[in-house]
């Protein structure tokens, strides 16, 4: 029975700069087994599914997108058959997709940690931010002596630094 850490309550946000009003602003971190390590939301207007279904949907979506973009890659020499699952360390060519109301950015580390950031559609290329968030994860979660890998993250240091960074980003 998995239980998902992170907070579901919307924290009081600072005066919203232009471009972020009415838009979802969330972050998910998954590990290679699909366990949601942390889910944070700073500004989410609509919730349609229970959080467990939401996480499964997100993980499944990105798993398929990743696999699809790799198979469709015209410059890739060796292509497996469609449907063959990808190994975690093989790199990811898929970065982000954008719709009318939001932009979803994605990054996967060689160890299979997937970081997903949902922002307003006007956001630029967030790859550097995702790398920075991964760095925060390494510093405050992986190097935390009290953390067991594979469990949801409950670390105050990580939470505060992350909140600070994302607020400055917005």
């Amino acid at each position, binding site marked *: 029975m998995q239980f998902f850490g992170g907070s579901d309550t919307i924290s009081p946000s600072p005066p919203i700069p232009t471009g972020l009003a009415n838009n979802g602003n969330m972050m998910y971190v998954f590990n290679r087994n699909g366990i949601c390590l942390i889910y944070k939301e700073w500004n989410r207007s609509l919730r349609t599914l229970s959080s467990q279904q939401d996480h499964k949907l997100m993980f499944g979506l990105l798993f398929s997108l990743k696999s699809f973009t790799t198979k469709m890659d015209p410059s890739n020499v060796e292509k497996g058959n469609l449907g063959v699952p990808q190994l975690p360390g093989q790199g990811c060519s898929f970065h982000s997709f954008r719709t009318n109301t939001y932009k979803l950015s994605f990054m996967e580390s060689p160890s299979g940690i997937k970081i997903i950031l949902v922002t307003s559609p006007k956001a630029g290329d967030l790859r550097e931010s995702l790398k920075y968030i991964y760095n925060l994860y390494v510093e405050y979660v992986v190097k935390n*002596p*009290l953390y067991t890998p594979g469990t949801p993250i409950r670390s105050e240091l990580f939470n505060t630094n992350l909140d600070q960074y994302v607020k400055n980003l917005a």
Partner: protein
Amino acid sequence: MGKEVSESCVDSMIIEMVSAYSNRFYANKAELAARRIEAIGYQVGLQLSERYTMERPRFSDHLEAIKFICKDFWSELFKKQIDNLKTNHKGTFVLQDKRFRWLTRMSIEPTPANADLSQDPSVSAVENKATQSASMHLYFPCGIIRGALSNLGIPCAVSADISEFPACKLLDTKPL
């Protein structure tokens, strides 16, 4: 001079050592695990103090040796010096490090926001467990200091106190 090792490797190894001794070798016997970890620290302290006092003359008195620990020894180990040194002139010294390097990344779980009064015992139990595992990690540096001082000719006992995170106080008492 010498080869270099990445700091993350050393940090991870120390973390794993503490967790192996507390959770695997001596599970449920916290006292024994703590003693083992401190003994390992003692050996490390002995050898490190040999290495770092190679070219120095002998220390004239206990205060000089303690000052060496606070300044040179601590900067070799943790890249900074001890922030505060207090003594009661009767053999007890308190070394305070406001930002102890091995504790900077340690983070206790945030207490649940809606814990009502009936759940108080469980909340404090969680906090106690967290502080207990945090204090397990302090036996190693205590052992290092004890080893270093005993190699310099000062037998003593060292204990640690983490009341404010991530500052930590090390209390060093000389047996009279």
